[in-house]
């Protein structure tokens, strides 16, 4: 399985993400944002960082990078896309996942460990996770306060678009609506996630729960690939 990690000017989790993707058993390569091509990878990851310095609004300028048209085509043809932290902000600004990430309600940049509940076990992102298991991962963001109007939140929930929520004991760190930490698009293959699985990918980092998620995703992508091959 091939993974491409997009490198924007200001990305700073790209190397960690490449490392974690390789640990999860994939062939992972960086994709420079000015190359309008995702080079046939199965999964595109938009990593964390501060693309374009977060100028104007987090994620908005990265959305216009040449590679984003290819990422959109990849998503629309059923390819997998995971946006982590700043990558989630880019996906939201591009309209590839629903919602917007506002400034944290705490008025602070929040960098700490949180816990996530898994809201559905049948998504390609979560099907390999042990049922009932919460995931411990770090966050590091100033704009992670998830927002959608109430009616659209109901619609998102009823179609199973919420994959992860902030859970006790640490709870909601940023004021996100309904404790939402991760969402997916209607096809279920494009996911935006605020916490950093790549920063929890080995026990020596304090948790390897992120690796559980990445391995689950690798398995989910492989199952989806076999379904296509069989069809």
């Amino acid at each position, binding site marked *: 399985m091939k993974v491409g990690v997009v490198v924007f000017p200001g990305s700073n989790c790209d190397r960690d993400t490449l490392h974690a993707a390789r640990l999860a058993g994939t062939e992972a390569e960086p994709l420079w944002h000015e190359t309008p091509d995702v080079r046939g990878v199965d999964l595109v990851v938009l990593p964390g960082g501060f693309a374009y310095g977060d100028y104007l609004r987090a994620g908005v300028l990265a959305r216009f990078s040449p590679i984003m048209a290819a990422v959109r085509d990849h998503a629309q043809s059923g390819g997998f896309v995971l946006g982590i932290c700043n990558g989630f902000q880019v996906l939201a600004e591009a309209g590839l996942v629903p919602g917007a990430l*506002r*400034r944290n309600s705490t*008025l602070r940049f929040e960098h700490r460990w949180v816990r996530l509940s898994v809201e559905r076990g049948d998504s390609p992102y979560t099907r390999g996770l042990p049922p009932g298991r919460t995931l411990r991962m770090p966050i590091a963001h100033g704009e992670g306060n998830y927002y959608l109007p109430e009616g659209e939140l109901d619609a998102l929930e009823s179609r199973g678009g919420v994959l992860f929520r902030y859970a006790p004991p640490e709870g909601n760190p940023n004021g996100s609506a309904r404790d939402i930490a991760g969402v997916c698009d209607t096809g279920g293959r494009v996911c935006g996630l605020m916490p950093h699985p790549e920063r929890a990918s080995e026990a020596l980092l304090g948790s390897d729960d992120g690796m559980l998620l990445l391995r689950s995703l690798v398995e989910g992508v492989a199952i989806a690939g076999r379904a296509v091959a069989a069809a």
Partner: protein
Amino acid sequence: MSAHRFVVAVMPKPGILDPQGRAVEQALPHLEVSGVSDVRVGRRVELTVEAPDTMAARAVVERLAGEVFANPIIETWEVAPASLVAAAG
């Protein structure tokens, strides 16, 4: 073609928490200023557009405002010709 200058004012939508505005408001007592409430912080973008006429220039600015300068989910915006803004100011 002529040059047309515009001002785009972007604000958080009414009713949506504005943490910047709240931070400013919370700092005001340190300045011994009281009686100030409902502080909201937005963004002002100025730009010049080359176009055949004002209508065409304005159409470009309206598009940029909705796609780039503001996020329609959480923000509102107003476009005005810079000359009018300057005159009003």
